């Protein structure tokens, strides 16, 4: 009745599509990474190059600085999102009038297309009619211009990411906070622990799997961020906000340096895989704890 052939039959279409869209490009990018392949070069077609592309990559200052920039952008944005998200999640644990309304509005940025997020922030910060530069200069005399000053651009990109993704951190941490048992806290209260001690020695250790999972997921997202930053600053001024994604897409890709671009893609993929492996480890260790 439940023959395994029927089961596989139901599963196969999904597996085929994911093979074409997921596995095939992955294998292909590894393959091309070993070749010299540039439409504009004198050599026609693919020329086997061994690990030359990777050797080049290690000394590519543009790529490495884009990578460093992306990681530090991710670190600052994600750290601030965690602080804000925790405060907001904490206030949502108890019921109050209008909670559902506030929480629903709060989730809005998560549904907005990243490219439209970039567009909104561009309209806010554009010199000429954007309210942010206007009021900053009127009230504080600050000459704010994301097209001219690198630090203003970086700050704005971080703020935009905070606007876009704090709701995500809030909702995930809220899910964690509401699923925590009450007994350890009651016990600690009896033992005379203060709020900070409870936070430090009970909340944080119990929330650690969720905190780590969310942190790695946000880092993965930040490693791939392209759309919104591209729309807001175009990676500029200069290279101030050019992330790895923008670097591959706008610098390597148009040069049709396919072999080298593949090697670079693979390295980004490698970082993502390491992060997802960490997520997997944290997740499985958590479910073991639960089952014990």
């Amino acid at each position, binding site marked *: 009745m*439940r023959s395994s052939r*029927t*089961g*596989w039959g*139901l*599963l196969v*279409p*999904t*597996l085929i*599509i*994911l093979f074409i*869209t*997921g596995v095939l*490009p*992955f294998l*292909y*990018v590894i393959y*091309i990474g070993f070749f010299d392949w540039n439409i504009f070069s004198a050599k026609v077609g693919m020329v086997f190059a061994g690990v030359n592309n990777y050797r080049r990559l290690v000394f590519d200052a543009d790529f490495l600085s884009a990578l460093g920039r992306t990681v530090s952008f991710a670190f600052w944005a994600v750290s601030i999102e965690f602080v804000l998200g925790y405060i*907001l999640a904490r*206030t949502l644990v108890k019921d*109050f009038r209008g909670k559902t309304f*506030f929480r629903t509005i709060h*989730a*809005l*940025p*998560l*549904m907005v*297309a990243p*490219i*439209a997020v970039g*567009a*909104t922030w561009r*309209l806010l910060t*554009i010199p000429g*009619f954007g*309210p942010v530069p*206007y009021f900053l200069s009127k009230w504080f005399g600050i000459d704010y211009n994301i097209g001219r000053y690198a630090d203003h651009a970086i700050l704005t990109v971080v703020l935009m990411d905070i*606007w876009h993704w704090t709701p*995500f951190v809030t*909702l*995930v941490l809220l*899910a964690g906070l509401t699923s925590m048992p009450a007994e350890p806290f009651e016990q600690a209260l009896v033992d005379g622990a203060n709020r900070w001690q409870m936070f430090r020695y009970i909340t944080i250790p119990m929330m650690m799997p969720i905190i780590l*999972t*969310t942190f790695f997921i946000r880092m*993965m997202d930040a490693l*791939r961020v*392209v*759309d919104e930053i591209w*729309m807001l600053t*175009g990676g500029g001024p200069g290279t101030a906000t050019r992330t790895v*994604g923008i670097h*591959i*897409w706008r610098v390597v*890709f148009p040069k049709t340096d*396919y072999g080298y671009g593949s090697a670079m*893609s*693979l390295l980004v993929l490698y970082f*993502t895989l390491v992060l*997802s492996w960490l997520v997997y480890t944290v*997740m499985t260790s958590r479910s073991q704890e639960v089952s014990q």
Partner: protein
Amino acid sequence: MTRSTFRKRLGRVGVYIIWIVATILVLLPIYWMFVVSARSRVELFDAPTFIQTTFFAENYIKPLSNPTFQRYLTNSLIVASCNALLVTFLAVLATYALSRWRLKGDQSIFFWTISNRMAPPAAFMLPLFLLFTRVLKIGTFSLFDTQIGLILLYCIFNLPFAIWLLKGIMDGIPVELDEAALVDGASLTTVLTKIIVPLAAPGIAITAVLSWVFAWNEYLFAATLTSVNARTVTTGLAEFVTVTGTNWGQMAAISMISLLPALLFLALVQKYIVVGLTFGAVKG
């Protein structure tokens, strides 16, 4: 008033202050975009105010009556709708199989399926571009710049999400129901259409809506893997800034159009967004 009730009240006021500020901060950028979309060029370059009493409809009419933008809009609607249908259909079959059969290695298959969600577009677009333009070709037909190409491609992030969401729902439907029907000699198709789909309908609807929104929002794949025929609204939005230059009113209007679905479906799906974005690492 005792000290503790005072603190409690202060705490409640504090919570409201925090949430009112947070809500204003969330809505302000979107409200400003609406304001820009309602202003003519002349109004725009006055000193910025947040109060808007007039509505400059031309910002909306111009792009909506432009054949190029109409094509972008149609493409987005077709790609998002077909992708949502395809993804939901495949996910119902796959999760039914994963939930009812003990297949060899089904646990690893499940995790592998989910992990596809993490594929970073920035790293995948180059191999996909080459595959679409050079390798996956039948005669003169290639997947590059076609709606079918995008519909298939968006499965990479939507299918894992749909499978995660529906797996939980399928596991929640009692096995006895379809077991009994199968004993009575019902075919697999009957079981699926008469028992499983009706029972899982709310979950299926949410899966379809969220997949639709994710596909509608996608930009990077659409930008690299289409050129003329299959361009979508999001790519049109980006082109607006780089090529046409500075018609900010119209750009804001297109942005408003692009986030209309998000505004419409927000209340319905907000609980499940987190599940979608964490590929189920955290239950929302």
